[in-house]
């Protein structure tokens, strides 16, 4: 961890207007939960669509995508990354710092509303499990999106393809892809920590735990490797 890089990254991230587009997502999540409870619906009925349907499939990955591509991808895009790379620092230090900022911001923006929704559902245990799930999801997603940022020049697009096509579409059609879906790991881990009727895991818990770890560590290692050979394209020759 490098405090100087962390500070600049956080200021760059939170100073961008794009990041404030994220605020409505958590608010919608909480608002819908309040509304459902207000009209007298049972948590068993509204919990699944709101927590899984909205929280796990949209809020968590989209926040992770915007934040994860924002900590490094934006700097690569506008060229400011050279100021950070032209320093005698191990590339792993630069990358891990950026990743830590991404994980923290994502876990906060996604974990807080999920916690509140858990409380609204009247399940304190579930609320805490959702926070753990958000942190696990933030780790794996951030590692993925930070890696994509170093690999491609279109990280948001590639990230969206993963979230929407792989997790959103294929994950619900073919059960095989669920074993390679961060969303499913999060869901299984939450269900394991706080078993309720509201949501249920579809992937084995040990598989989820191991795979979440493999995703996180694997993507991070790949990203560090890629950053070591980061080239600046000579656009003007």
């Amino acid at each position, binding site marked *: 961890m*490098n405090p*100087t*890089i962390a*500070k*600049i990254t956080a*200021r*760059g991230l939170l*100073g961008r207007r794009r990041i404030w587009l994220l605020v409505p997502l958590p608010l919608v999540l909480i608002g819908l939960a309040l509304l459902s409870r207000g009209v007298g619906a049972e948590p068993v009925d509204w919990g699944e669509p709101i927590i899984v349907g909205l929280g796990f499939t949209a809020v968590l990955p989209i926040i992770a995508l915007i934040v994860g591509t924002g900590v490094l991808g934006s700097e690569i895009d*506008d*060229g*400011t990354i*050279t*100021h*950070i*790379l*032209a*320093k*005698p*620092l*191990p*590339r792993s230090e630069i990358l891990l710092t950026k990743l830590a900022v991404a994980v923290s911001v994502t876990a906060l923006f996604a974990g807080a509303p999920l916690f509140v929704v858990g409380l609204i559902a009247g399940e304190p245990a579930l609320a805490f499990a959702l926070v753990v799930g958000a942190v696990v999801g933030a780790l794996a997603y951030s590692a993925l999106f930070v890696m994509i940022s170093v690999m491609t020049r279109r990280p948001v697009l590639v990230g969206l393809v993963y979230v929407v096509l792989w997790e959103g579409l294929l994950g619900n059609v073919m059960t095989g892809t669920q074993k390679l879906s961060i969303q499913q790991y999060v869901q299984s881990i939450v269900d394991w920590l706080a078993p309720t009727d509201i949501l249920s895991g579809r992937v084995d818990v040990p598989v989820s735990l191991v795979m979440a770890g493999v995703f996180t560590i694997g993507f991070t290692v790949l990203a560090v490797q890629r950053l*070591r*050979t*980061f*080239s*600046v394209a*000579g*656009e*003007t*020759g």
Partner: protein
Amino acid sequence: MSTVDLNHVSRWYGNVVAVNDVTMSLQPGVTGLLGPNGAGKTTLLHMMSGFLAPSKGELTVDGAPAWRNPDVYKTLGLVSERESVHGFLTGKEFVLASAKLHRLPSAEEAARRALALVEMEPAQDRRIDTYSKGMRQRVRVAAALVHEPGVLLLDEPFNGMDPRQRFHMMDLLHKMGDDGRTVLFSSHILEEVEQVSGTVQVMVAGRLAASGDFRTIRRLMTNRPHVFTIRSSDDRRLAVALMAQTSVTGVEVDATGLQVRASDYGTFTRALPRVALKEGVRVRQLLPADESLESVFSYLVGA
């Protein structure tokens, strides 16, 4: 004392060769890297600064490869051409961050010194967003030399600077050169480098076209043949008189006027008014026909 050594360095992108078999050694002092746009200057600088791998050949800074070697930045400072900076930082924060990332023992002091060197203290507490192009450039130079590197690489540092800022920057580069640092700057505008006292490396189409003392190359540039288009009240009469001048190597008369080839720019331009006056010919137009930078550089390739 630091040196940058290139040994038969080439870089290509697919079928396009950007840098072609360049061998050079940069020594302490100021060196200008000159060449028209697209000559490969930026590619060369990217390789020197460790942001691009040479496709072939060896490139070292003080004997250590620049590629995949972050430690190189202990002895190397870089001011890239893209003027992107973290605009939300103030000038001081930006330079201080640079000092801290270099893990300097007294970062505050180093940042203060660097900002003083580029005369940016009055604006140091303003956000970089609000800076003019020249100010941005100076604060980037401050950030690049905050750790007092042995080698300073600058890509087109005079872009967007007014003549006074340019003079000041050149002065600063020379001071650093006199301190025993190896300073390399690139430029595609010959006028920018007139005050340079050191050596120049001229690149044309990816190759090193000329290399050595600036004065020698400057003379080569000014002594090359020049072509002028002249329109006058009596073209033929002027042509005959001009042909008698030793500085004129050829004259051609056509419908639009005179094409004069002169071997020496200075002598010819001094002789023309004298000749015209003597012959009673009124010169209506005098156009240097061949003054594009590309032609100057390509002349050097032939020399």
